[in-house]
């Protein structure tokens, strides 16, 4: 039994370690099968270096036509699953064709890699970075090993960040004025604001603030838009009267948000909206949606 199993096993074990692997921050990533694994975190312009160990199984030798490592940035559309579009591809040859008898270690380094896009796991699209090690063999098929890693890019706070202020209403029925303190929020930010009721003729039951993500994939006629509500945060309970001003304070940190992505490689966009929803006693919904920009701010403390 063991023998048989051994026959179908790859001839060697390949492992990839990063130079600062122990200290590097790991972030959770959800895999296809729903499992959550921790992957190291990088950002653009970082040097990605490490070692690759090739460990033949006991008593076996590995004959190969060369060993190489690739750094790939891939976009995968779910309607076209398994078909990756590589927007970044870097290769390092590690070995010339030959044979490996015992454990062999190859250092590698991609210095100052340009990784413009962030890792993203959406409803219809995925953007991921991966290190791919290939031991090329002629007849038996190449041995391939992948190591995912995560890229997040930090941006400085925007120099201009106006508040969102707007008066909306239905004539003779409902007039409100709302204000959010900014139009651009970082991912751990707090939305502050207030909702001012100028006219209330309907019986409001409650008021929520929703954070919605709009993911559009494809281009032109094939554009596919998927909207999901990531958060539903109750702002108000009961019916206000004219002149009431309701405070808004929403912490963004509990929610699984990403920065706003605009037209990533012509493949997809991710936008965020704040949706203010008023529900009346007959469960009619009155809402107003406002786009906000999310960005990732370098976390000072951590």
């Amino acid at each position, binding site marked *: 039994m063991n023998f048989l199993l051994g026959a179908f096993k790859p001839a060697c074990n390949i492992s990839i370690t990063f130079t600062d692997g122990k200290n590097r921050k790991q972030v959770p990533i959800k895999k296809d099968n729903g499992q959550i694994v921790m992957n190291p975190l990088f950002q653009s312009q970082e040097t990605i270096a490490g070692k690759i160990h090739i460990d033949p199984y006991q008593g076996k030798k590995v004959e190969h036509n060369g060993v190489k490592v690739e750094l790939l940035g891939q976009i995968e559309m779910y309607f076209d699953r398994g078909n990756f579009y590589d927007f970044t591809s870097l290769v390092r040859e590690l070995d010339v064709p030959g044979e490996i008898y015992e454990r062999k270690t190859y250092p590698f380094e991609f210095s100052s890699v340009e990784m413009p896009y962030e890792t993203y796991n959406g409803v219809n699209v995925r953007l991921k970075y991966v290190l791919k090690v290939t031991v090329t063999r002629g007849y038996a098929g190449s041995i391939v090993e992948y190591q995912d890693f995560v890229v997040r890019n930090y941006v400085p706070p925007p120099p201009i960040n106006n508040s969102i202020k707007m008066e909306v209403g239905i004539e003779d029925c409902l007039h409100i004025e709302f204000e959010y303190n900014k139009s651009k929020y970082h991912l751990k930010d707090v939305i502050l604001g207030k909702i001012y009721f100028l006219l209330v003729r309907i019986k*409001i039951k*409650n008021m929520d603030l929703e954070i919605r993500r709009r993911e559009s994939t494809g281009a032109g006629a094939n554009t596919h838009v998927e909207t999901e509500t990531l*958060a*539903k*945060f*109750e*702002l*108000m*309970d*009961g*019916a*206000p*009267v004219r002149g*009431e*001003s*309701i*405070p808004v*304070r929403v*912490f963004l*940190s*509990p929610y699984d948000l990403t920065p706003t992505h605009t037209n990533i490689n012509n493949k997809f966009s991710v936008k965020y909206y704040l949706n203010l929803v008023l529900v009346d006693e007959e469960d009619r919904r009155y809402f107003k949606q406002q786009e906000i920009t999310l960005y990732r701010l370098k976390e000072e403390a951590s």
Partner: protein
Amino acid sequence: MIADDDEKWLADDIAAVKQNAFYMQRAIDSNNLKDALKFSAQMLSELRTSKLSPHKYYELYMRVFNELGTLEIFFKEETGRGCSIAELYELVQHAGNILPRLYLLCTIGSVYIKSKDVTTTDILKDLVEMCRAVQHPLRGLFLRSYLAQVTRDKLPSIGSELAGDGDAQMNALEFVLQNFTEMNKLWVRMQHQGSSREKEKREKERNELRDLVGKNLHVLSQLEGVDLGIYRDTVLPRILEQVVNCKDELAQCYLMDCIIQVFPDDFHLQTLDVLLGACPQLQPSVDIKTVLSGLMERLSNYAASSVEALPNFLQVEAFSKFNYAIGKVVEAQVDLPAAGSVTLYLFLLNFTLHVYSDRLDYVDQVLGSCVTQLAATGKLCDDKAAKQIVAFLSAPLEKYNNVVTILKLTNYPRVMEYLDHETNKAMTIIIVQSVLKNNTHIATADEVDALFELAKGLIKDFDGTIDNEIDEEDFQEEQNFVARLVHKLYSDDPEEMSKIIFTVRKHILTGGPKRLPLTIPPLVFSALKLIRRLRGGDENPFGDDASATPKRILQLLSETVEALSDVSAPDLALRLYLQCAQAANDCELETVTYEFFTKAYLLYEEEISDSKAQVTALRLIIGTLQRMRIFNVENRDILTHKATGYSARLLRKPDQCRAVYECAHLFWTDECEKLKDGERVVLCLKRAQRIADTVQKMTNASRGTSSTGSVALYVELLNKYLYFLEKGNTEVTGDTIKSLAELIRSETKKVESGAESFINSTLRYIEFQRQQDGGMSEKYEKIKMEWFE
């Protein structure tokens, strides 16, 4: 049905609370912050229900409240374990639902304040601001009530270790005020939600919740460092602003009362104008009486409790402020019924009487204000108002127990003018009763004048109204009061007393025919009393021009009594004339006495027609005349002659007989030798006997139907003879008596006279006198009767 549902929902909610509380407790025991938050939020979610009535909701709230206590302790411990409180403060705000989020926020907020990590002010401000998010009245009220509850013992005050500085303290104040304002808004809003059909039910429910709102005021009053200045400049105006602006009857009523009850007396005193200034701005439907009465009662008690407070009352002019305020209230509330405004003045009056008992001018001012008010509404017609006004007018009476004081109140009668006459009468009786009960000494004519002016209701008829429905008995009773009142008027100074009498007379004469017979006698007797007093003193201490001479008074009385004869009460008039005559006699005023007799005779002749009345009147005349000493012979003769003449002209013979033998006394006066005319005495008796004879004949003629009359007449005559015999009238001879006795004996033999016992006792008397020693037996020696042999 609904109540059942209510119970069921409550039971469900409580079960859910219990369950989540259990899990929360377990998470707390294992120091699992995340789960503790999760389950506490779930537990708190039960408070999001809209199904429960306020009462049941309160029950639910109390359950949750108890559990939150545990959570608060846990939060405190958690911060000890290195979890920063600021983080916790953020963490609880991740809760998706607003109500659990805010409850948690308040809970952690209270821990935060205690931790002294941040300025208390910031947290308080944040909490009270965030709580705006709950606009549902019931849930909002309870949430804010929770906020007030958990922060209550943590509010910074001067001297407290939490106090950053004076600012913090001001801000704590701001916090409570704002919380109060918001709660009140929510509370008021409850009224306007839902269908109008359930208005009453809602009002009831709201009433159950009022203490949640009121508690804030209590907290304010407990807040350390709130001194008069702060109260005056910040607290009170802010509260009042809210109270006035909410335009809600229930709230205004309750909160005004709250303000009055929770803050100290001297604050009220110093801020009276502000507090009172708010009153006219309240809704017309607010029962402002209760509010003001509460305030005045409190201040009255305050004044009563400490003597030092009194100068403050004067200093702040509490009275005029109240007076002004009430005027304003009445002015502002156009629809206020008369009863309402009168009640207001009643409270003011009570207050004034309590606090300023020595300030009659204030009392008078109150009355004056009331008059002004009444002038606008006209006469009071409804019972309630009448009742109030009676209470209003009685208050000073009860306080001072002295009508004389009341008489100094110029506005008092003016108020009375606005009463309908039923009420007026009732009020007058109260006044009079007060006089009688307290034995009030009313000693000057001016006072008397004022009093009678006041008591007009009893003394004269109202203009043009003649109601026949007056119960005779009641009327008598009323006039009885007047009569008693007249007797109470007394001055030691005869001059003044006579003035009093003049005054009383002036008033009484306006009384009309029904009253005069009842009111004149006391006046007359009161005057006679005075005359007697004058006579007792020096001849004439005042000189000739003084009004208080007996003559003048008698003159007056003569005129007064004359009024009686006009109103067909001749019997009474006659009696009074005779009384006067007697007084005049005592004063030795012959012509006056004579005049009175003339008048009496005139009355007798012209007005008294009933035979029985004639008998009585004649007796009186004879009796009085017998006592007269001052007449000269001529006058006396005229009068006696007339009297005798009247006697003989009486309708019934027995009456004639009796009257005639009574006349015999007119010729025999013990004290005065010259008035002993034995001859004429016997003449009279003889004449009487003759009449008796006629009676006897008539009786005999109609025997069978018999009357006992004549024999009794004879016995009476016999007694008269005996009387004069004893008095020493020499004209009375033994023979006369003997023959009379014989006559009696023969008559009694003929018929059963019915007068046996009278005869026998007379005879026994004669026998007895005969046995006596001394002069009497001698006189009786003359009588020798066979009867006794």
